């Protein structure tokens, strides 16, 4: 059974930390302002706008210790990551979830944070929020940012989006799991790896070669992650690259070919991505997926 952390009330505190790539402090200012306008207090970690000179927002120890402190601090009610990039996989095994498991809180992010989502789901059995991070708040308070607000307040989500010609219609319900495809592939075979049986899986990615997306889908398939799904949600695959000799398929065509043999409902073009369109999704929580003739709906149960 997956534990649902307490939803947030006005006056609760949200911690902001950068567990992966470097982020300048000013890039999180709009986020801080928005969170405050929602009535939350904000506690900012030192990894945001740190004096790190390399790729990371701090050393492994600094990033791990700060996240650990925020996981353990009872005065922090949720953790919103500044940004992804790369680095969660370097610290995940150094984190101690003992206190967190007893007193879970919402952790919020996507992309590189997929490692933490999967780990929390598989090992700690606590739900988490796959949603825009601090940098996305710079685009203004759009419906995707608002969906994050609603999700941590405990308002049940009901998302709909346009149909896509590759959709496979049908209804499914199950726990929602997923995230960034590259990270899901990367954690395969590790203790953070997810079991997708009877789940609704969602995937998205950015900046990959189409052949590499194809290869990762084959990895999901060959590691048994596609055969027994309840349903599948294909999010945005933004900034895809192609080889000099073209792959010959769009990324959606490649995905559609690989899943053609399965009978569960599949929704393409769902607004979960590295682009602006990125609804908050609760990993480990039950949803209903309706892939219909006129629209796709994802409803939190």
């Amino acid at each position, binding site marked *: 059974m997956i534990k649902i952390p307490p939803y947030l009330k006005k006056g609760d505190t949200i911690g902001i930390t950068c567990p992966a*790539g470097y982020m300048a402090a000013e890039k999180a200012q709009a986020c801080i302002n928005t969170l405050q306008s929602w009535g939350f207090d904000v506690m900012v970690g030192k990894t945001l706008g740190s004096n790190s*000179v*390399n*790729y*990371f927002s701090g050393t492994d120890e600094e990033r791990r210790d700060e996240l650990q402190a925020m996981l353990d601090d009872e005065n922090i009610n949720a953790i919103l990551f500044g940004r992804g*990039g*790369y680095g969660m*996989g*370097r610290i995940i*095994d150094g984190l101690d979830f003992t206190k967190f498991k007893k007193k879970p809180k919402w952790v919020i992010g996507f992309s590189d944070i997929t490692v933490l989502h999967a780990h929390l789901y598989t090992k700690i059995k606590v739900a988490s929020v796959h949603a825009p991070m601090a940098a996305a708040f710079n685009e203004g308070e759009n419906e995707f940012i608002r969906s994050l607000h609603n999700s941590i307040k405990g308002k049940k989500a009901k998302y709909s989006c346009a149909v896509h010609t590759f959709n496979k219609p049908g209804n499914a319900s199950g726990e929602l799991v997923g995230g960034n495809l590259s990270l899901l*592939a*990367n*954690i*395969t*075979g*590790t*203790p*953070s*790896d997810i079991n997708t049986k009877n789940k609704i899986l969602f995937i998205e990615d950015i900046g990959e070669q189409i*052949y*590499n997306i*194809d*290869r*990762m889908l*084959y*990895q999901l398939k*060959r*590691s*048994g*992650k596609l055969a027994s799904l309840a349903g599948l949600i294909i999010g945005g695959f933004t900034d895809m690259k192609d*080889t000099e*000799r*073209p*792959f*010959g*398929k769009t990324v959606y065509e490649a995905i559609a070919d690989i899943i053609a043999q399965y009978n569960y409902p599949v929704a393409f073009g769902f607004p979960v991505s590295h682009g602006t369109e990125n609804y908050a999704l609760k990993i480990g929580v039950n949803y209903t997926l309706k892939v219909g003739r006129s629209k796709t709906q994802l409803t939190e149960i």
Partner: protein
Amino acid sequence: MKRKHFLSSFIPLAASLSAVARGKTSIGPESPVAIPPYLKPGDTIGICCPAGFMKPEDIQPALLKLAEWGFKTKVGATVGKKDFTYGGTDEERLQDLQQMLDDKSIKAILFARGGYGGVRIIDNLNFKKFDRDPKWIIGFSDATVFHSHINEKYRVATIHSKMCNSFPGDWNNAEPAQKETIESINKCLKGERMKYLFTPNEKNKTGLAVGELVGGNLKTLESLAGSASDIHTKDKILFVEDTGEYLYSIDRMFWNLKRSGKLEKLKGLIIGGFKIKTDDAGEEFGKTIEDIVLEKVSEYNYPVCFDFPVGHQKNNFALKCGVLHTLGVHLNECRLTEVR
């Protein structure tokens, strides 16, 4: 159970057993590896494209050299076929390779090139005849799928080496490294006991190891994790190489190896060539390949060496995967030697 124990305690001896003698019901990661028959002059080598596309004229240098070595060649239908990036459709590539696996007159299969595509056909190949009458499978990069799959599921040795696209068109003006590495394929095929001497890197971790050699392209190994082709690395000497990846991505792949338990029980680790994609401005990773590897293995005691001549580079020697080797990493000398 007893039988398995008996066999695995005599690995060097058992390595020369035929596939038939291995007791198929008990094939596991520790079962002895079958060595396909070495080639004699007059034997036939099949050439096909299980992944990327290759023009017939581009395999001519390989055909000439193989003939010079005394081999006949059989060029598969996929050479010259083109389905966008692939050397034919999945079905065409599958059929061509299947037919070569099953054809008893073909003693080895040399892939024309890598690219991407092995994983799209591997699960539809039937290795029944191959398992009974093993033959050498030769290639690298995307062919890591085959090395890994065949090692894990069939316990048959394979050759990790350059493919047709690396045979120099003008042999006489080719660099010594090009010639030597191509010649190493001939040596492997003819059953020469292989020895590799290479320059020590000051970051090496010295030591001596004996173990079965496995490995290949790091990205491909990562993409096989969790699948039926995923390799067990316990008590083995693992080699890895890659090309065109960012440092952060290489780091992430080494974490996959580590977190999936593939680094913990190695006998030795060989780092080949890594052609690194330059970091984007402002995103400098700040660690070298040596840093990335050493931090992952600092808690282990086996030897680790860098700059081994294997990879997407001219210095890419033929290696027998699945075969027992000795790795000696010393301050003044590094050596990998096939055990007989």
